[in-house]
């Protein structure tokens, strides 16, 4: 029983992390139809920043990581994606692949292939025992952080004028432009928010591992992208739910599969993904057949 609870908390936290990462991808996709694979390198940049600046104190390190992530996200948009507005989602995906590969090699050149380590927020790495159930502080913190960010984002998207504009653009970019929503501002905003979410993901994953290498953000981005697509990348809530589902499933499989089978946990997740795509190509959360915008 306590083992079940423990694995449930772990899975919730893994789901929350991937949900945030998928949301970072989904926010941008909704506006310019770019499934940005290089989101992983934004996460890596945030993680490196945390590792290198942690000794200056968390109140410096965390804001600094957010700033770096947001700036890198905006830089990607300005230097590459803003010049590719006419490209298809498939071409945009390939371009983001290239960007991701490029940044990984730049990190390799700058920080070597070895992992950089620092005890980032090591207080959170402890476990506490509640009624016989050992629970990682980090898992609780991750779930809380995700809840706060999602509430904030929800308020922003429904209350603030700028947020409403973004929400409208994500729902239907063409119509949004027609009614006078400034395209460049909304696109920039989506990249900036994506950067903030990536920084949050960077924080929880860096606390978890304490070590960052050039390809740090890749595995999480692969799963987040896959999750966003099966949840329905066309809808912000779809991306979030899909990411959560994939994270939850991966974590549960890791806790409950016997050792010799848990090696294959990603293979099971990918098969699940293919199955979901076949049954609901438009995404789990999109009602009806829904026109699959390509």
């Amino acid at each position, binding site marked *: 029983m306590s083992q079940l609870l423990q694995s449930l908390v772990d899975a919730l936290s893994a789901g929350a992390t991937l949900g945030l990462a998928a949301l970072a991808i989904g926010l941008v996709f909704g506006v310019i139809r770019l499934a940005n694979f290089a989101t992983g390198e934004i996460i890596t940049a945030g993680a490196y920043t945390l590792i290198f600046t942690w000794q200056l104190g968390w109140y410096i390190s965390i804001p600094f990581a957010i700033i770096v992530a947001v700036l890198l996200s905006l830089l990607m948009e300005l230097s590459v994606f803003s010049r590719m507005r006419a490209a298809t989602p498939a071409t945009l995906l390939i371009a983001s692949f290239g960007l991701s590969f490029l940044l990984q090699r730049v990190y390799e050149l700058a920080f070597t292939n070895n992992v950089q380590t620092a005890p980032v927020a090591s207080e959170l790495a402890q476990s506490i025992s509640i009624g016989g159930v050992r629970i990682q502080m980090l898992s609780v913190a991750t779930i809380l952080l995700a809840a706060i960010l999602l509430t904030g984002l929800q308020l922003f998207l429904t209350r603030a004028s700028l947020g409403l504009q973004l929400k409208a653009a994500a729902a239907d970019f063409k119509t949004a432009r027609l009614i006078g929503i400034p395209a460049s501002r909304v696109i920039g905003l989506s990249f900036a928010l994506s950067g903030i979410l990536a920084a949050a993901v960077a924080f929880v994953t860096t606390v978890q591992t304490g070590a960052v290498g050039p390809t740090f953000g890749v595995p999480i981005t692969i799963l987040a992208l*896959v999750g966003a697509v099966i949840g329905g990348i066309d809808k912000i809530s779809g991306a979030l739910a899909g990411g959560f589902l994939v994270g939850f499933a991966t974590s549960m499989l890791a806790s409950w599969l016997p050792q010799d089978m848990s090696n294959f946990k*990603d*293979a099971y997740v*990918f098969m699940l*993904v*293919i199955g979901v795509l*076949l049954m609901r190509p438009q995404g789990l959360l999109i009602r009806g057949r829904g026109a699959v915008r390509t």
Partner: protein
Amino acid sequence: MAQKSLMWRLGPLWSLVSLLLIVYAVTLVNSRLGDGIQVQMRYALVNLVIVVALQMFIGTSGVLSFGHVAFVAVGAWTVGLLTIDPELKRNLLPDMFPFLFDVQAPWLVAVILGGLVGGLLAVIVGPFLMRLNGLQAGIATFALLGVVSQVLTYWSSIGPRSGQSMVGIPDVLNLQTTMLITLVIIVIAWLFQRTKPARLLRAAREDPIAAAASGINVVPQRVIAFAVSGVVAGVAGGMFALTNRVLQASQLGIELTFITLAMLVLGGVLSLSGAIVGALVFSLIDLVLVQLQSGVDIGSFVVSIPQGARPIVLALVLIGMLLWRPSGLTGGREFVWPFRKHAPLPGNPVTND
């Protein structure tokens, strides 16, 4: 008039002959430049075959696939298992299914079987995956690659234990043989372009709605293209196994997928010549960068670039290409007979997008 109709018939053939000549000439030049460059040229030809496989599917159908490297991987695995000495297999890969210890095949048979295994995998998954479009197809084929690389990494019943690699693949393939296989593959790809499924798929790629209205059921055609390109990718995997002679699942994963896609985009996705020009140009840039990394003497100077700069330049080339010339070096066209003006190939739509 007779002359014109002869030209008309030979004209398309020129698009094949020119490609064969280019590959032959580049190989010939490189074979004279020393052993190191010869080895790199062999890898370049293996990559070229993978890019041809990608073009046969992506270029013809317009559907994105990140999954072809999965077929490369199973092809490579097949050739590895069939060519390693049985005694060696028993010692190095002890966990394998017992029947795999004794199966052996001459290398050429093994490469063909590798192709067939690649094609078989494509036929099995094709009917499911080919129903998807656009981003969904990309993600689903990516998931296929994920499944295959996990299985090859961890399933020690069909290969090495995880973290170890398959060694002992015989050294039987030289540059000349590699080139011959490559030329045969190019002929196959060219012939495939002129078949009915390929034509129907190109029509559907240009205008899905009009194609559907003309009664084209696109899914079975896509499965055929997927299977044929899967065979070619499997052969490429076999060539990779015999060239590299050490196999590890991690070599045949996301990075190879990225590099071969970059080559295809560089040359132009829509034409076979795009695939070949892209692969060759990319490999030539790579060759120059490798030389520069180790330092090149120009007069009294030694010109060199830092280690690790090579992949950065290659990635910049890809991104620059996507920004400034998204249709690739060839612009999606095939080569035409130089003395015939404004004559696009019959059956090959000239696209300007």
